[in-house]
């Protein structure tokens, strides 16, 4: 374990292991001492741990810029060395990993702080305050795992983080493992967690195959060594295999078609989790993986095109579903899948800078949207709570609380006109929405436009991508408009919405920071000469790219599309606000199409029928018929046991008919399950066995000696 080589350079590279250890220390403090700590102390420990991680990330970024973006590796410990397989715990600091570190720890810290306020209330609504601590333990663990993912210097270390964040995702989706999303006792949340883990494991299976192929063809798993070997022997079959296997992993982790199905269910997790893991950071790991493997993808155009198409199809497909959702978080979940599709499409086309740019701005505005949605949901819960406890005396209220039907605080049909009750949240949400919809000059405008521009410029090599993404962008603005009108405008559709309450500053202040980033985040990479900062920065790692200038044509079209979409959404949902109990105005004109969107195109049902049910049937058939009835019972009774008896008889003939027969009979008796006395057990079986072995040995020896 030595830090010395790099620590001596005078910069902060030697600190990189702290990215992992700081959050782990925070986790351990809360695990060990948290039982006696107050909530604010637990929250502070976790937030400080995450905040210090951000500080380290900043120091690393500073060191990088001071050394002209020169990549540094920091060896920490030996890991697995067998023959050619040489794997170490070695960290890598380059401009790409640095961006990821900053985004993850920066957004992560804000979400930690927000969660202090959010979980304080959540554990009380769910009536289990002991679980407050567990939340922060998991959250810190997540940051640590994410840091391993982005700072590892080999595919396998990346894979450790990759599965590690999957574990945290599983734990946090099923955080309220004894409830469903409506707060009723159920296994549903737990199942959502399991689904996420398993869908991700399917992806990881692909990733593992990519790793094996890489090792046996390129002799290493360390990034630079692999890339060098690949460029020396660019065998298209091998590299296509590697990149496409990797793509399976990407579709799992970054929720792309066909493995995206876990992400909407992942909204069962508390809202800070949705924001941090299932929007801003973990789900972008797939995008990071492709960018990290850029030298490989650059070598195989067909594979890259498949990546781009998967992204573009996902972007559109998920956007259509988002249009038909009523749950505020589900809309955002499908929106996330769709936006991840934009990123994957970008990196598939080789537009790595645009992909990473959108990754960063999306982290800002989508975290903002999710957390604001959390604020709305809690606001509704407060209103609900207020009403439940408002009637009569306290006892009655409790009784009332237990008996009433499940109230869904996240259903947009229960909301309406919330801008009146929650003005701060409203404005924050607007900032996020405009950024997501891609309205000038919000962050999303710049990053999405860069992707669209790349798609347009590369249309010859990647046909179809631009069209799909443009339609998706149109739908994005539409479903966000629909959401805004439904949630914040019109009339309150329930009594609860009338009594919704604004959230405290511990929640809204982090949101304001995120809102600032959502508004100004475009400055990371403005399409003007001298302002391609991110492109320049990433250029140190993935090779210098020429920054694209602003294309007024592309920007104009996408802006007009977005404004049109918002206008249509106003006509449908703003001009004539939805009334309580009224069906969605799109239902009638779109007919079965809307039914499809509403029901997520029945993909879950399809998977159930095609994969899950056949698997269950197979499991039953193998277990009951093959394993138990045939193999366990029939084979044992009719072949093995009968064979043994036959052998015993055969061996007995020359020796002593009587003894062996008696033993065989005894054996037969004993196998009958009724005969279970200990006396009988000790009585004969082992002796008979020993005897038959002896007889056997004598017979064999006799044969061998005297043959």
């Amino acid at each position, binding site marked *: 374990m030595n830090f010395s080589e790099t620590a001596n350079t005078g910069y902060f590279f030697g600190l990189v292991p702290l990215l992992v250890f700081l959050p782990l220390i925070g986790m351990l403090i809360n695990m060990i001492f948290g039982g006696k700590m107050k909530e604010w102390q637990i929250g502070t420990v976790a937030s400080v741990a995450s905040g210090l991680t951000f500080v380290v990330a900043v120091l690393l970024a500073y060191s990088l810029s001071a050394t002209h973006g020169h990549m540094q590796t920091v060896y920490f*410990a030996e*890991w*697995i*060395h*067998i*023959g050619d*397989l040489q794997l170490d715990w070695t960290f890598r600091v380059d401009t790409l990993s640095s961006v990821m570190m900053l985004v993850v720890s920066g957004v992560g810290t804000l979400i930690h702080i927000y969660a202090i306020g959010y979980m304080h209330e959540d554990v009380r609504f769910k009536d289990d305050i002991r679980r407050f601590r567990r939340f922060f333990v998991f959250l810190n663990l997540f940051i640590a795992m994410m840091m391993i993912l982005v700072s590892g210097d080999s595919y*396998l270390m990346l*894979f*450790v983080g*990759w599965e*590690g964040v999957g*574990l945290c995702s*599983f734990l946090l989706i099923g955080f309220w*493992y*004894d409830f469903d999303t409506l707060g009723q006792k*159920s*296994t549903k949340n*737990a*199942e959502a*967690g*399991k689904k996420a*883990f*398993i869908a991700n*494991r*399917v992806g*990881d*299976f692909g990733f*593992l*195959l990519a790793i*094996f192929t890489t090792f*046996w063809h390129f002799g290493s798993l360390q990034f630079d060594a692999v890339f060098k070997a690949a460029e020396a022997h660019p065998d298209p079959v091998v590299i296509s295999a590697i990149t496409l296997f990797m793509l399976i992993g990407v579709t799992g982790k970054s929720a792309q078609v066909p493995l995206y199905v876990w992400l909407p269910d992942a909204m069962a997790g508390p809202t800070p989790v949705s924001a941090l893991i299932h929007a801003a950071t973990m789900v972008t790991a797939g995008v990071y993986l492709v960018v990290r493997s850029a030298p490989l993808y650059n070598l195989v155009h067909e594979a890259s095109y498949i990546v781009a198409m998967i992204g573009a199809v996902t972007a559109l497909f998920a956007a259509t579903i988002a249009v038909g959702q009523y749950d505020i978080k589900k809309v955002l979940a499908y929106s996330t899948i769709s936006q991840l599709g934009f990123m994957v499409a970008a990196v598939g086309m080789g537009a790595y800078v645009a992909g990473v740019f959108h990754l960063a701005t999306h982290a800002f505005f989508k975290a903002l949207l999710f957390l604001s949605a959390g604020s709305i949901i809690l606001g509704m819960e407060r209103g609900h709570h207020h009403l439940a406890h408002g009637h009569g005396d306290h006892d009655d209220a409790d009784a009332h609380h237990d008996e009433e039907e499940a109230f869904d605080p996240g259903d947009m049909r229960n909301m309406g006109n919330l801008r009146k009750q929650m003005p701060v949240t409203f404005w924050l949400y607007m900032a996020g929405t405009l950024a997501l919809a891609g309205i000038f000059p919000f962050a999303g405008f710049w990053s999405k436009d860069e992707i669209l521009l790349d798609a347009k410029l590369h249309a010859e090599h990647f046909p179809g991508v631009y069209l799909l993404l443009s339609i998706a962008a149109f739908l994005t603005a539409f479903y966000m408009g629909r959401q805004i009108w439904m949630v914040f405008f019109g009339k309150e559709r329930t009594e609860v919405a009338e009594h919704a309450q604004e959230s405290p500053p511990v929640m809204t202040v982090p949101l304001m920071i995120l809102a600032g980033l959502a508004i100004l985040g475009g400055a990371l990479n403005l399409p003007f000469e001298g302002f391609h900062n991110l492109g320049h920065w990433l250029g140190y790692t993935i090779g210098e790219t020429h920054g694209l200038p602003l294309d007024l044509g592309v920007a104009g079209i996408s802006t007009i599309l977005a404004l049109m979409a918002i206008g249509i959404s106003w006509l449908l949902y703003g001009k004539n606000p939805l009334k309580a109990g009224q069906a969605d105005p799109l239902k009638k004109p779109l007919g079965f199409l809307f039914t499809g969107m509403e029901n997520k195109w029945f993909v879950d049902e399809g998977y159930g029928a095609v994969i899950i049910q056949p*698997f269950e049937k197979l*499991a*039953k058939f*193998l*277990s*009951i018929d093959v*394993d138990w009835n045939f*193999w*366990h019972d029939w084979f*044992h009774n009719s072949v*093995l*046991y009968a*064979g*043994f008896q036959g052998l015993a008889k055969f061996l007995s003939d020359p020796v002593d008919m009587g003894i062996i027969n008696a033993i065989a009979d005894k054996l037969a008796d*004993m*196998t009958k*399950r009724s005969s279970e006395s*200990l006396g009988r*057990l*000790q009585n004969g*079986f*082992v002796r008979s*066995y020993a005897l038959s*072995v002896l007889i*056997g*040995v004598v017979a*064999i020896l006799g044969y*061998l000696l005297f043959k």
Partner: protein
Amino acid sequence: MDFELLPNLVTFSPLLGVLILFFIKPEKKELVRWVSLLTALVTFGISLVLLGRFDASNTDLQMVTNLTWIKVAGWNISYYMGVDGLSILLILLTTFLTPIAILSTWSAIEEREKDFNIFFLMLEVGMLGVFMAQDLFLFYVFWEFTLVPMYFLIGIWGGPERIYASIKFFLYTMAGSLLMLLAILWLGINQGTFAVPDLIAMGGIPAGIQNWLFIAFAVAFAIKVPMWPLHSWLPDAHVQAPTAGSVILAGVLLKMGTYGFVRFNLPLFPNAAIHFAPTMAFLAVVGIIYGAIVSYYQRDIKKLVAYSSISHLGFVMLGLFALNSQGIQGGILQMINHGLSTGALFLLVGMIYEQTHTRDFDVYGGLWKIMPVYGTVMLIVTLSSMGLPGLNGFVGEFTILLGAFGSEAIGSAWYAGLSAIGVILAAIYMLYMYQKIFLGPEGSIVQTVKDKGHPLRDLSVRELVTIVPLLVFIFWIGLYPKPFFALIAPTVDNLVKVLQAAMG
């Protein structure tokens, strides 16, 4: 004539405890327990001295004892004991798991403790002998010797169908052993010695005969592992055995099978090993997938874990028959990993069973809330078992799959590719089990035991003491496996050279 005390001391020190136990009255339960535990701990201590004196860089047998035992009519049977990189970890696993298993019986075994502990310590002698013996005949004696105490442990202290299970255990194992005995005798008589190192050095067994001998050994070992399709004794034995029996059965006894392959089949019959590598890999893959799918359908916790062993040991076999460094080293490490994780799983299942007296999934649920420490420990072990990176299982599985993927002997990446599906399936059945017991709303068992006046409690200090050492190794091997690989690497590399020479 060599004599080295240490390996003999390790092997036979449990007998001292047996001897003391003979003179203790059965009623003095506390004393019986302590004597047994201390004996096992002393044995563990001596095995650590063995480890200290072990020179990992030396690829030969070390601390050899070689005495003439039976020498008649041209037969050369010797008392030949020694340690090398193939066995050192398994010896330590045995001495490590035995005291843990014994400690776990303190509340589980409530009748005839004295007999139980005598059998248990005798079992340890047998297992250690198996891993130390370097003479085929001596090996066979120890191999068969382990059957007897295990037979009684299941048959006397087991569950309701213990008789059926113990007899089945016996019949299966014996059926295989007889073939092996035949092969041993052929080798000993034709080659003039039973000493394994001499036999390896001599070589020169014609390829055709190698195949037959290979099969004879392989059947015995495959039953023990157990490899599909010879596994059907395992669910019975595991489900019926008392907790400590299951721990040792899964933790060590099954490894005698996989160890047999790597100790005898590979170096003695290298040509046959190469010839049969694709076949063995095929059986391993089927076992991995089949065991995993059947696990998923189980509704009894112990049975699920039992079937999962079939899947996990399939990985070990796949690694061994990759016949390259990554595969074999991964396979040996995975033997240890499986012993730790599955041993821990059986311990944990036993702990909850003592409180609830049922292993039926359907009555469980939501225990994490009531038993947070137990829930957390079980989660770690579950994750270890399904190969989460950072924990021990991953290091083994990864190296095995990597080795098998590029194995010349297996000849196709398909085997490893299909086996990797087992990684998905492991997540499915292990998380399913975890969810059934710990997540969701409270299961009916919570109320049932409350009504009986024994509400569920979290782990006791004694229970923690039994489980924490396993957790330490689960993390250690997962994060920093270097010291473990260092112990096995030189010997395995030597073996791989022999195999490569045979491959031509």
